């Protein structure tokens, strides 16, 4: 498998109006994109560019209006592939009545893991994200940063081949960000695929091998990070310089 995900001429229009009879809101306009397996792939774009929609399509949270998508070498209809994917969402509301350990056990169970192997895995992950001493505490008492750490742990519970991080550093403190970067590097070293969705340029620049830039529902650039940086002025110029013309071309502020 050379690609973790492939999008072919994907269009997504959200229905509007009574019974979806309205004109609809276009979110993706014919996206064709291949996410290589192994390594860190960045998906960059301004707000409302369609990044989250692209992720939702990949996770079968919504269906494409047209076009085809394959995930880990299988069509979207094969939900079993979701058991090989981890997903961390920027602002997810976990059940506040569960403790950290209960949450990981619950999500691990729904990922298809066996109960007997879950306990050890849960302990390992809570230690990894620095929440081992809060394992029995209800999530209701957690700060936003702690919930983000827990979100990262739940995304790793099934030892995923493809990890999708949607704006993962939102709400994380400095230590949390460092932990996240460390985990991404470890996954990269283990030849796993990480899809990092962000609008924070330095984050993408630092972690990603290649990226796609999505603006107003269209891919305006896709390729290696080094090439994109190379298109900018040499010696110390930042990625923003390279992206600015692309954004302006699409009329995005």
């Amino acid at each position, binding site marked *: 498998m050379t690609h973790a995900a492939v999008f072919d001429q994907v269009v997504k229009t*959200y*229905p509007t109006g009574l019974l979806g009879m309205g004109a609809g809101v276009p979110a993706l306009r014919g996206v064709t994109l291949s996410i290589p397996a192994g390594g860190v792939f960045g998906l960059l774009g301004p707000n409302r560019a369609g990044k989250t929609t692209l992720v*939702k399509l990949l*996770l*079968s*949270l*919504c*269906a494409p209006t047209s076009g085809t998508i394959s995930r880990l070498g299988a069509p979207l209809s094969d*939900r*079993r*592939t*979701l*058991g090989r*994917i981890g*997903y961390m*969402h920027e*602002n*997810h*509301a*976990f*059940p*506040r*009545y*569960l403790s950290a350990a*209960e949450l990981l056990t*619950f*999500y691990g*169970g*729904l*990922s*298809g893991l066996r109960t007997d192997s879950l306990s050890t895995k849960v302990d390992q992950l809570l230690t990894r994200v620095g929440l081992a001493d809060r394992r029995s505490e*209800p999530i209701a008492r957690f700060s936003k940063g702690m919930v983000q750490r827990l*979100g990262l742990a*739940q995304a790793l519970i099934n030892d995923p081949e493809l990890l999708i991080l949607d704006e993962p550093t939102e709400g994380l403190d400095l230590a949390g960000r460092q932990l996240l970067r460390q985990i991404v590097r470890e996954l990269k070293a283990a030849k796993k695929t990480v899809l990092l969705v962000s609008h924070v340029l330095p984050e993408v620049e630092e972690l990603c091998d290649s990226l796609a830039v999505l603006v107003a529902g269209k891919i305006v650039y896709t390729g290696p990070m080094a090439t994109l940086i190379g298109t900018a002025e040499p010696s110390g110029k930042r990625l923003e310089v390279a992206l600015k013309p692309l954004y302006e071309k699409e009329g995005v502020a």
Partner: protein
Amino acid sequence: MNSLPIAIRTVRWMVRDTFRQSLSSKLFWVMLGMTAFCTIFCLGMTVETPGERERHPAEIRDYTRPGLDPKAVEEGIPVAGGRMSIGFGLFVFEVPKFKADAVKFFQLRLAGILADTAGVLMALLWTGAFLPTFLEPQAVTVLLAKPAARWSLLIGKYLGVVLFVTLHATLFVAGTWTAIGISTGIWDATYWYAVPLLVINFAIFYAFSAFLAVWTRSAIVAVFGTLLFWVMCWGMNFAHHHMVGLQVPGIAQSSSFLIEAGYWALPKPLDMSGIFFDAMQASTHIDPIQELEAVKEKGKFYPEMSVLTSLVFAAGILGIAVYEFRKTDY
């Protein structure tokens, strides 16, 4: 990896999660507290009645205050004369019946409250927010990104709530039945019919609640929409029996057709009550609903079909909810 074991496992996880959710919302403990309260009341129950004698037809209807049944008085039968107290003497009633009849009458009232109107409506009100909370996009997206099929998540949550209500209904009936048995020595097993009646009744209307929850994701709409729907179904059920049983003249053919169609298409809460009270042999203790009796007398009451069509409605509406949930964009 077979998809059926995954679905079964998902349903099991969702049931567990629902119980966990109920524990945190304090609902579990509130319901358990009510059961404990009623059990203690029943434990302190005493019944003193006049000695054994032949049952008089006039004394076996609903609770009759002394002097209100001239026929019984005329024939020398004491209308009241017995005494029932519950809650260790906190509440005292005069009873016109034999001890077993008095206990049965009390159990009918208790079961009627639990398994009939009040119990079903209270359970719908208390559990109505479970599904809409679960279906909020911010809460469910990570779950939907798991390999579990969407239908199994929804059905798992639905079954979790139904099992939660089943557990509490069983605890309530077990507690009060045991307490009444200990305090009076009367162990009437028909009281246990209250459990399946409540569960079936609740499961039917909770399916509609699930549909509203999926469709609107609003707790308010799910709760009050379902209560309104219950009233509508009861009204349709009553109107049908009124029309058929009492043969009301002057009803247009189109109205008659609509009422008949509505009766068979919708759940039938009034029929469920009738079936329950028949199972408990309640007709000699409580005045039946006139319309229901009239339909029975005409041979136009079909209890099996009534339950079956109500369950078909529940399965159908739950199927629509699943379909809607499967195609919903998150």
